[in-house]
């Protein structure tokens, strides 16, 4: 569904990504793991058009999207749950969700979709008139996921969804991601929490210094000695 081929990304002179290639097949969970600063977030920013890549191409359902603006890429069905959640703190929960539903592809079905989001995350329904900035970290993460779903995506990129959350809440978020995937959602998951993401992903890539160092089935990597030493501390 999503193919990245030979992607390079520079911030000024600093190279954040070099020759990154990967495939995200429809209906699967693909994980990108790696240490802080390995280029995981840069990869997501490049795919979503927020930081244009300097070389390489990104194809979504066979169509090149490298030259498109972020809102056009969203409207093709590539949703994103960004690192740090990035909710709108002075808008209410409901207004935050509305913002996700403004995409042309999502406008017609926004009402139904909001009901669906509230069914999925009942806490959000209880707090619909509350300002998003007053929610707990976990609730904000639910809101960020809900807001993304409002855009009717075919593929969701999760950037560090477990960051800064209590372990129980992390379980809840992962459960939500898995539930979405079981309903057919394609997922690109970027995580520092290597053990967890390798467990739930079908396929995974290890990103080191801006390049793909290894890739394989999640369960294989989980038992790979290098991965165990470098990322799991075993």
């Amino acid at each position: 569904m999503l193919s990245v081929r030979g992607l390079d990304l520079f911030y000024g002179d600093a190279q954040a990504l070099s020759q990154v290639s990967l495939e995200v097949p429809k209906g699967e969970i693909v994980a990108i793991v790696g240490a802080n600063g390995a280029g995981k977030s840069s990869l997501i920013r490049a795919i979503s058009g927020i930081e244009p890549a300097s070389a390489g191409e990104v194809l979504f359902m066979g169509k090149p999207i490298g030259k498109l603006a972020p809102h056009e890429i969203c409207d093709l069905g590539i949703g994103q749950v960004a690192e740090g959640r990035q909710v709108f703190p002075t808008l209410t929960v409901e207004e935050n969700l509305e913002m996700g539903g403004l995409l042309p592809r999502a406008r017609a079905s926004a009402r139904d979709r909001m009901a669906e989001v509230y069914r999925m995350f009942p806490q959000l329904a209880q707090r619909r008139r509350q300002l998003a900035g007053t929610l707990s970290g976990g609730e904000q993460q639910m809101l960020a996921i809900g807001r993304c779903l409002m855009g009717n995506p075919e593929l969701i990129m999760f950037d560090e969804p477990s960051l800064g959350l209590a372990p129980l809440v992390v379980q809840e978020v992962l459960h939500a991601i898995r539930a979405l995937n079981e309903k057919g959602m394609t997922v690109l998951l970027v995580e520092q929490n290597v053990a967890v993401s390798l467990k739930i992903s079908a396929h995974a890539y290890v990103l080191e210094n801006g390049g793909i160092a290894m890739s394989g089935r999640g369960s294989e990597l989980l038992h790979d000695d290098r991965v165990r030493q470098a990322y799991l501390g075993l």
Partner: protein
Amino acid sequence: MPLDLLANVIIAGVLTGLVYGLMALGLSVIFGVVRVVNFAHGEMMTIAMYAAVLLFGAFRLDPFLAVLPVAAAFFAFGYALQAGLINPFITRPEHSQFILMVAVAIIMVNGLLIGFGPDARNVQTDYQLESIEIGKLLVDKARLYAAVVALAASALLFAFFRFASAGKAIRACADNHLGALVVGLRVKHLYALTFGLGSACVAIAGCMMILLVDVTPNLGPAYTLLAFVIVIVGGLGSMAGALLGGVLIGVSEALAGLLITPSAKSMFSFGLLILVLLFRPQGLLGRKA
């Protein structure tokens, strides 16, 4: 001093202040969302005043009716200015944004000087000399109507930001730029929309102000400064703050005219600015950064 004179002066100050407030609201909204300071704000105000003068001269169009075409034209101009000229500067350092907007302001002032010369212009309607008597109070008709229009325009803007999808989306952009990109809001379009709305505010304020004062090209920089003072007194980025600041400055100017001499009015408004900066640097209704 007779109390009713004082009351009359204060009422006139409040009414003028509401028009000031609408002008400053435009500046505040643009800064609050786009994070670019419109150093050409007062110059745009004077262009709107000249537009009202021209429409009055050519078609006898009352400034209260001229509001509609002038505001529409300013909206379009503001949208185009942001989309064409300012958007490419959004990610540049502040000093280059500053130079850009100062350049726009200088072009505007000198354009007006070329077009209209340095002499003062105004419009003359019947109701400018009329007033309404309420007991012992005398309220200028033109000033009262101007204030009502300014309040109505502000209320419309508040309602737009509160209830319209585009208004909420603009607030979302101001709240979290990355968040706006991530959900696929068309940030540049929304910035241009914001600049258009801020320009429309200043256009309406200009059409009202021409009923109260004469216009010269050099009024532009003075109004830019005044708009800054108001926005800083009221609280940068706070819409209600801009209106409140406008009213306070309007009243302080009127009182200066009554108590000392009209030319001392800036002394009063800058005094107020210094007090606010000393004791409440975030502005009266501003939030702490």
